[in-house]
């Protein structure tokens, strides 16, 4: 389909550029004794362009190109800058405190970017298929809704004097389940075990349940299933937001470090003794 072609065309160009760069770094680039300065300046310019993607998001009212174009550029240039980074370092890992700090910083930003890219490509589909689509900021409301429904269901059901088995079990097992988001990692890793555990609990309870409570029991079961869906939405949507907690702060550090790096390599260069 044309969609896929269009999407990948930028990546194909990037892959080609990376290969050309790798070959050049073996044959062509060593001819220039100052090549590290050249690649360094390019890298710095790339970092500025890459960081500007974040500013683009802050100025939607100016005509500076569509954000989707910026993202494509961000991904392609980001990948290329990773290759350029290693060429700049001469395919070795640097020594020295500051340079290592700097290099680690770059590597973390680069890798977190790749991870984020992968999540952005794969998580939306998972979220869509899972259903129970809820805006992230409204998840507490939806959760509260489920909790109130579940509590009302359980309280409503008893005769008022003797607590029913279901309500005892509710207090036992689901009382805290509805209060907070649960099973962050399990949902992120697509594990069905928490839900399976609940299912088996319900299956076990079904044997002891009184006939009159069957309706309420089925509804409770449904609510628990919905809470799992909501938690799933929460986990994935949170993950889609959290990776930026690493990527963005460190990319600012990277810019700060690179300024010092530029000052150092020039003021300590042999050119000025």
């Amino acid at each position, binding site marked *: 389909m044309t969609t896929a072609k269009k999407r990948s065309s930028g990546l194909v160009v990037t892959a080609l550029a990376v290969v050309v760069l790798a070959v050049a770094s073996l044959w062509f680039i*060593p*001819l*220039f*004794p*100052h090549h590290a*300065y*050249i690649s360094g300046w390019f890298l710095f310019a790339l970092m500025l362009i890459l960081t500007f993607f974040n500013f683009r998001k802050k100025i939607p009212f100016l005509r500076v190109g569509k954000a989707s174009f910026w993202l494509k550029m961000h991904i392609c240039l980001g990948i290329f800058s990773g290759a350029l980074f290693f060429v700049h370092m001469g395919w070795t890992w*640097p*020594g*020295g*405190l*500051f*340079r290592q*700090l700097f290099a680690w910083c770059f590597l973390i930003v680069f890798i977190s970017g790749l991870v984020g890219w992968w999540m952005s490509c794969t998580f939306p589909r998972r979220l*869509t*298929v*899972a*259903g*129970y*689509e*809820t*805006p*992230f*900021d*409204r*998840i*507490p*409301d*939806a*959760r*509260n*809704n489920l*909790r109130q429904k579940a509590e009302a269901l359980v309280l409503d059901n008893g005769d008022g004097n003797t607590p029913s088995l279901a309500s005892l079990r509710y207090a036992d097992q689901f009382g805290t389940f509805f209060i907070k988001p649960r099973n962050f990692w399990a949902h992120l890793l697509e594990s069905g075990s928490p839900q399976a555990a609940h299912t088996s609990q319900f299956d076990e309870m079904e044997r002891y349940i009184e006939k009159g409570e069957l309706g309420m029991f089925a509804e409770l079961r449904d609510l628990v299933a*919905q809470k799992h*869906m*909501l938690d799933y939405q929460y986990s994935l949507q*949170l993950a889609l*937001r959290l990776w*930026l*907690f690493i990527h*963005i*702060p*460190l990319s*600012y*550090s990277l810019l*700060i*470090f690179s300024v*010092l790096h*530029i*000052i*150092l390599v*020039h*003021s*300590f*260069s*042999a*050119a*000025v*003794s």
Partner: protein
Amino acid sequence: MKDSQKSSEFQRKDYVRPNQNWACGHLCNGEACRIGPSPKGKCRATTECVPLLDVKPGEAKGHYKCTRPASAGGKCPNGPFPDGTCCKSIPKCQPRRTLRAIRKRIVAFTVIASILILFIGIDRKARDEFINPGPVSSTHASQHFSDLTKKITADDSSCSACHESARRNADTWPTKVREALSGGLAPHALINKGPSPPSGMDKNCLACHAGKNFHQPNMATEFACHSCHVEHQGSGFMPEVSSASCLACHESPELMAESRQMASNVDPHLFPSSQIKSNVKHPSLGRPDGGYTKLIHAFYDGHPEFRVIRDKVKDLNTLKFNHKLHLASGEIPELHGKSLSCKDCHETDSKGEYQLPITYEKNCVECHALQFDKDTPGLTLPHGDPFYIRSFLRSLSIQYEEYAKTTEGITLKEPLREYVRSKGANVEELYQTGEYMERAVFFADMKGEVPGGRRAPFAGCATCHDVSQPLVANGAPVIAKVAAPNRWMEVGKFNHSMHEKGMSCIDCHDVMNSELTSDVNLPSIKSCVDCHSPKGGIDHRCVRCHNYHNTTPGSLFGETSKQPAEKKEKTSGQ
């Protein structure tokens, strides 16, 4: 709608505002209040409404009405208190930052932390360690070096020995940056090919390492020290100079042409000459026409032939030795049941690098024992000074007596006299006169021919040595001194034992056809590049053999131009 796409239910009347920094503290319970926190994050919850005083006509005081808006549930059933306060106060909360606001804080924190780290890092106390891009070589890291630096620069930091900026405060760095950007690191300078031109740092190197123009006087261009010597590459020795540094000139037609041109204007005595170190004076190996300006691309591509081979140098040694006879003629009897091989005479030094010098005592005596009386094979002449040999011959009776005592075990006076007498008679029968015996010993060759037409019953000194008549009356005959150079090729390093793996001596040294002492049986470069090339896969870097500097630059320890290699060579040979 499909089951899987079931939508969640929540208050749809309100916008979701992900752009806000603060959210109501009750939001996590899903019970955010209508008022919401202030943009600065303060809870503004008060009461659900502000009751309104309603005075109907005719009423004196009136009464309060609930004014809770419809969006919050409309009028409440209880209504306000009589004093006009709302009956429903909203519980206060501690507003929470939204995820995005937390991210903003983390960004701010990281930025501040990064700047702090940098400022701590470039403080003088921590600076050297912080900004050092990698460990310096162990010499430059030594205590001795830093003591020396302190003397020269009066600065605590040994970095300042090379880097002026290390001596200064960080606020002077931008000036340096500007200087660099307008000088050697200006944009147009970055795309220059070839080695870096002399730089400001060179003078710092020269403060310790005296002399810089120590290559060839006709160099077309000069370089910075750092274009070949790269520091900060880890402790230990500095990394070897890469061949590319050499080829930057030797591969460049322009530079080599210029050098050729310059050579014609340079006093020829200024060129360093190459000598073969030996007791015998070899003619010096001359510069080729045009100097060393042939274009070289690699050891295997364009490197000229070794000078020893190119100039067809002869071995001027006086010893007579025929390699072919010893190894290939079949005339030599077996030694220890085997025919002779190279190793029977040539032995490498303990490092396995070079061949030890051949000595009579070690390598010849086994076959060439100096026997003169075949009835007494155990008694041999001494090897060495001809004067001693003559003395030995002239005190022969004492020598026999000594021999009888030590070897034959004859100690009694009578048998001893008898033994000496019979031996003396035997010798007399062989040589008739003492004078003849001396001549035979010194001048007989391998076939026993003594100049003057007589024959000796054994091979004399002249078999191997160049023996001539005494220079003074009543003097001993003169034997020319044997002298082979320890090494023919002084520049290149070589390790024989490393080459033994899979190769034999004659693969390189063509001794099977060598009959004359004057043959220098060294291989041509051609046999080297078979292996020392990308094809052969063996190291072919320039620095394996060559030293750019003709003399070693002055070292930190004050010993100038004393080559440690020279000491070594005294014990090694080839």
